[in-house]
């Protein structure tokens, strides 16, 4: 178990280094950032001074080593566009995205899991068919369209909810949270729903398919033949066996929620990292882009590590023969 964790940590570090290399090479290949930073009438000396200050004159391997060391210490450089250091800019944006993703993931699980179980157990009931139909919409409609439709219905027609921005923030130790005020929740609910809808339908369909599969297995039939109660069979035996694939997919999906909240944040003008990265791309703000890349990769790696550990909790077959034949 311990050896496994160490091994996974080592792999995680390799992955992060590879990502860092990609992030770093952004600096090398996406034009000369100096042009974007200084005015048209800047002198050659001014340009050179800036180039020197940003360390752009060092040899490439040294630049990469510096980049890795700085990044590992949380120093991501200075945003070309805003002129502030990137960690400050990100620290400002991160809470917005994390709260949005967190609430969206909770929504997706809270509704997706029970709906999936229900439609797996009663696959021919009217309600399951309704769920299936709704999930088809959730899967096939693009996020921006869902966002715009929600704005139309709840913002324009019903005038019930705000359609853009993040309000009602309270600062807790440098973390601006919107989860403590009604206003904060009101502005969160539409973007979170938009982001959650696809995940919700995905989780629902996955659990349904897995439940149908597991309910056909011999051990479920044997559990019935032993006269176990339906509750015990459905939730104790069947549901637990659907968990391994479900955990895998959910881990990946939470990662992509973080990475791809861009569209939702743009539609709702949500001041998170997604919006930041869109603006950064427009301005070729490479420090922000590369930091974003590294950060998202870091989240993915951490989530995958947690998923691997969860496998251990759920499935004894992966624990090896530990405690077995001795």
């Amino acid at each position, binding site marked *: 178990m311990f050896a496994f964790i160490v091994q996974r940590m080592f792999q995680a570090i390799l992955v992060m280094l590879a990502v860092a290399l990609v992030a770093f090479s952004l600096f090398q290949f996406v034009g000369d950032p100096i042009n974007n930073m200084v005015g048209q009438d800047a002198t050659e000396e001014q340009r050179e001074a800036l180039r020197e200050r940003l360390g752009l004159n060092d040899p490439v391997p040294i630049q990469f080593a510096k980049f890795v060391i700085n990044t590992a210490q949380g120093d991501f450089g200075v945003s070309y566009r805003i002129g502030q250091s990137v960690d400050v800019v990100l620290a400002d944006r991160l809470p917005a995205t994390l709260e949005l993703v967190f609430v969206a993931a909770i929504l997706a699980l809270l509704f997706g899991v029970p709906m999936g179980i229900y439609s797996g157990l009663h696959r021919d009931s009217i309600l399951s068919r309704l769920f299936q139909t709704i999930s088809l919409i959730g899967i096939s409609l693009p996020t921006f369209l869902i966002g715009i439709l929600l704005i139309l219905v709840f913002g324009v027609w019903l005038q019930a909810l705000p359609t853009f921005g993040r309000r009602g923030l309270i600062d807790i130790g440098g973390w601006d949270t919107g989860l403590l005020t009604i206003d904060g929740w009101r502005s969160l609910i539409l973007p979170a729903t938009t982001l959650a809808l696809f995940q919700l339908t995905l989780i629902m369909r996955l659990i349904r398919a897995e439940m149908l599969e597991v309910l056909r297995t011999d051990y479920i039939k044997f559990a019935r033949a032993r006269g176990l109660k339906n509750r015990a069979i459905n939730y104790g035996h069947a549901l637990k066996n659907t968990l391994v694939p479900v955990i895998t997919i959910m881990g990946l999906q939470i990662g992509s929620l973080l990475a791809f909240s861009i569209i939702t944040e743009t539609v709702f003008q949500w001041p998170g990292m997604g919006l930041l990265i869109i603006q950064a791309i427009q301005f070729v703000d490479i420090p922000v882009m590369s930091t974003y890349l590294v950060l998202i990769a870091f989240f993915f790696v951490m989530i995958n590590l947690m998923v691997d550990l969860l496998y251990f909790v759920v499935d*004894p077959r992966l624990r090896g023969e530990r405690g077995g034949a001795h």
Partner: protein
Amino acid sequence: MAQTPVLEVRNLRVEFPTRKGTLVAVDDISFHVNEGEVLGVVGESGAGKSMTGTAVINLLEPPGRIGGGEVYLDGRRIDNLPYEQMRRIRGRQIGMVFQDPLTSLNPLYTVGRQLIETIRTHTDLSEQGARKRALELLAEVGIPSAERRIDQYPHQFSGGMRQRVVIALALCVNPRLVIADEPTTALDVSIQAQIIALLKKLCHEHGAAVMLITHDMGVIAETADRVAVMYAGRLAEVGPVQQVIQQAKHPYTEGLMGSIPKVGHHTDRLAQIEGSMPRLTEIPNGCAYHPRCPKAFARCFAERPDLITQGATDVSCWLYDEELQRVEAHG
């Protein structure tokens, strides 16, 4: 024979409604199993053996359903019970052993947990009491160092050991009847005899009647008291095992026995019954066996034979009906 049989099946019919019409997987079969008795059920794949067992415990997979007939357990009709009442009978009064021990146990729970869960579902035992009982059972089915093994997962057991666990699970609350559906088919040949012997011994000790479903005549010959031969969803012959094996009455049983190779006899070609069992969609009129039967005559093509009692054996074949008539005519 005034005693009530443990299991009595009358005119059982299992159907599968399909778009092209209803398939009849088990067609009008009747048999019984007495207390302490082992009834072997043999037949080819698709003859309806397993379907019969599954119908008795009322676990047919939809759309399969019992289309007619009655099932009695200790004289009480059970085929029409509501789900919850039937659930209490499963495991409590009817235990079942399935074919593949590798897939019969839930891989995510220890064998102890699965045993304790089953015991506690059907009895008032406490967690500790159930665990004690589970340990006794594991020891009883011949699992060495049960104390340690009880907290292990199914994947830590070999196939034979797993089937022992499955038997322990089927017997854990002393059921009246055990339905063993090909309990040794998935096992290594060297283990098969052990498992069958164990099953027979334990059922005897626990006072359970056994319905042993198999296609292995050797197992039947050694284990069963009586044997039911099935063909195309119908019963061909039921009788005491020695009689059926040595003096088979139904031409199908005769063919079946004739096709078992004998040790010591040199043959170039194994004996076989010509043709193959009809699909459920193509069961012929009259006796289902007539297209392959060397003794078939006009009546076999038109009329379906009922079970005709011939001594201790019941056989569904017109040959015997005619013989009876002839004897009567002469007598």
